């Protein structure tokens, strides 16, 4: 017997589950899916980590929760750089759709910088890039995120020689 399929809605209350399911198509994605082959073995590959959890450095501007409270269909479309050395002591988390306490207690549950630093030291991956990123995942209208924010992140990844990205949505 194989691994059971993940039910992405099992942790949601039943009504919310029913409501969100309505907006997800039943059929597979119809269009072409982008594909960048992995060029080198993991032990030589430069990684970057990205999360949608609304994490920022304590020294940086937090994600804007006040505007979302006033405009419930708006989500902050900007991003924050998180240096590879960051730990729980360095970060703050602002997100109105999840309990954020766990991330403040152990950043690795969401943005596993510590685990990837270990993997780098152990030679499992080539390198963790100097800069990782967080944006804010609640985007009912993702145009600004896609057209302005993501290109900035991608340009810096390119500068830093990133070859593979692990995205952890919140």
């Amino acid at each position, binding site marked *: 017997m194989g691994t059971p399929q993940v039910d992405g809605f099992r942790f949601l209350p039943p*009504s*919310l589950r029913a409501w969100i399911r*309505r907006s997800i198509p039943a059929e597979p994605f119809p269009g072409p899916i*982008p594909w960048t082959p992995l060029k080198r073995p993991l032990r030589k590959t430069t990684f970057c980590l990205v999360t949608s959890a609304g994490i920022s450095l304590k020294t940086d501007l937090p994600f804007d929760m006040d505007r979302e*409270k006033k405009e*419930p269909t708006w989500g902050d479309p900007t991003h924050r750089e998180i240096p590879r050395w960051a730990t729980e002591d360095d970060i703050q988390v602002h997100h109105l759709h*999840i309990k954020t306490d766990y991330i403040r207690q152990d950043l690795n549950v969401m943005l596993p910088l510590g685990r990837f630093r270990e*993997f780098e030291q152990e030679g499992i991956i080539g390198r963790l890039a100097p800069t990782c990123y967080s944006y804010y995942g609640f985007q009912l209208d993702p145009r600004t995120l896609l057209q302005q924010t993501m290109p900035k992140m991608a340009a810096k990844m390119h500068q830093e020689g990133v070859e593979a990205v692990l995205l*952890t*949505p919140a």
Partner: protein
Amino acid sequence: MTLTMTPEFHREVGIPRVAAIAYPYGRPVGQVGDREGQRAVLLETLAFLERAKTPGEVHHLPFQWPEEPSKTDWQPPEISPVVKFFLEEIKRAGREARTPKDS
């Protein structure tokens, strides 16, 4: 590649490589302080990255969250603005899902 609790969104946007995990929102890599558990999830995810050959491939990771969904505390302390905004619509969706459809 994406390590996600909600692989269903793949049908909406078309994600190149999906590692799906049955963990709660906000903790896709594992539990607080569980270094070995987090490493196991990430190593399995990296192994999938290395062997995936087809755009849109989904790999369901073989990990189970130790708590039942109803006992898992992942929700924000306050109901989120969008849920509050659409609350009547959400309740109606729940009622309709519970009502047996005419055959």
